[in-house]
């Protein structure tokens, strides 16, 4: 695709209990967020395997956003605490092999934080726009 017409395509893994509802509230409140995000609803941020992130990037999305409940608010008590440890090392490893840190973003957004969801998505998409199209897994670079 031409650079000038390129629009980032990002995937958002949002927790059913908070961030997904948060994104819903963003819509109900008529707040705008970029259409670049494709949202996938998941039961808990702890459900997100680093494999999902890598597979998404391998299949050509430009960025991956993972969003869950604030620490202490997990519907399953501790899913997001475990996720936090997992993501802490995941992002270090991705950075170590040379994946731009802007492409993978984690956030805590509660069901009541519609404006925050819009802001997180906005900032994330802008960050991805800056690093450009994902050519990481292309044979020619």
């Amino acid at each position, binding site marked *: 695709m031409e650079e000038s017409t390129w629009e980032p395509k990002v995937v958002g893994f949002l927790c059913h209990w908070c961030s997904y509802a948060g994104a819903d509230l963003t819509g109900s409140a008529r707040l705008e967020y970029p259409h670049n995000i494709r949202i996938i609803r998941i039961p808990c941020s702890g459900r997100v395997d*680093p*494999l999902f992130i*890598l*597979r998404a990037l*391998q299949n050509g999305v430009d960025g991956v956003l993972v969003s869950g409940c604030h*620490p*202490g608010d997990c519907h399953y008590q*501790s899913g997001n*605490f*475990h996720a*936090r*440890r*997992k*993501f*802490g*090392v*995941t*992002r*270090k*490893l*991705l*950075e*170590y*092999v*040379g*994946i*731009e840190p802007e492409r993978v*973003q*984690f*956030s*805590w957004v509660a069901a009541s934080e519609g404006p925050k969801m819009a802001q*997180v998505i906005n*900032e994330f998409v802008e960050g991805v726009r800056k690093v450009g199209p994902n050519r*990481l*897994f292309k044979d020619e*670079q």
Partner: protein
Amino acid sequence: MENKLKEEAGKLLKEGKVDYIIGFGKGTVKFRTSPLITNKEEDLDNLVINPFIANNLSRYPIELKSRVGIVVKGCDSRSLTSLIQDNKLNREDLVILGVPCEGVVDIKKVADQSKAEIDQITDINREGDSLAVQVNGSSKTIPFRDVVFDKCYGCAHPTPLEYDILLGSEVPPSLETEKSLKGIKELEEMDASDRWKFWKEQFSKCIRCYGCRNVCPACFCERCFVDVNMPQWVSTYATWQDNLVFQLIRTLHVTGRCSDCGECERACPVGIPLRSLQRKMVEEIKDLFGYEVGIDKDSPPVFTHYEATDPEDFIK
């Protein structure tokens, strides 16, 4: 050490304290050892302890499912402890024969240093702090610490932390930390795109033999995610993209279990620096959670456990 090992192992078998002895046996190739797993006393004569005992044997007791006497070095003992933490092994089923380790000799380095092929080396003897290498009839002296595996530099626990019988006297930790992190530093100083290019080239070599997975004591899944075909996460076809995804996920699966024994890299037939990934993660979990692998068999594994104060500065 070798005689004491044979004696102790013999006693264990004779008294019926263990069903099997797992140790290092003479390899079929010169200057290499292979695992020796036996329940017969007469086989114990083939046990060896020499500067080439590279294998990490802690993988075998999982499959044996019986009482086992096992010979371990410092790094292996931490793998073993990690397996006990993961409930893969019972401490009561193990009699651990600890070998204080001054470093394991990498035969490839010996060949490089003595400017010869491995086949041309006829004999290697340890003499204090150096190795006397016989190449085509002439003798060369090489400093011992120059030819040990990279993992041995900066080794914090050369003496096993968990043992029942210690076969020698304790060895102080290696202080060559800088040397041990050299490769990682070099990569970190590169641009992200150069780093990606580096790993892309490395994983283009991968033939997906799964040697790294099969030799790894921390890789104990009954069914590996690459073998799952519903859904098929990773193609079985060896493209560099799938090779890289496979290895990155494998790295994350063993993070918190990897004792940096370096077996993955040693098993790799195409020479991908796999240890670099694991070593990086060892440093990261130390940094993020203050966790070191295989130190305390009674503590929970790092990823089954969390603290309210875990770092989250990266989360918006």
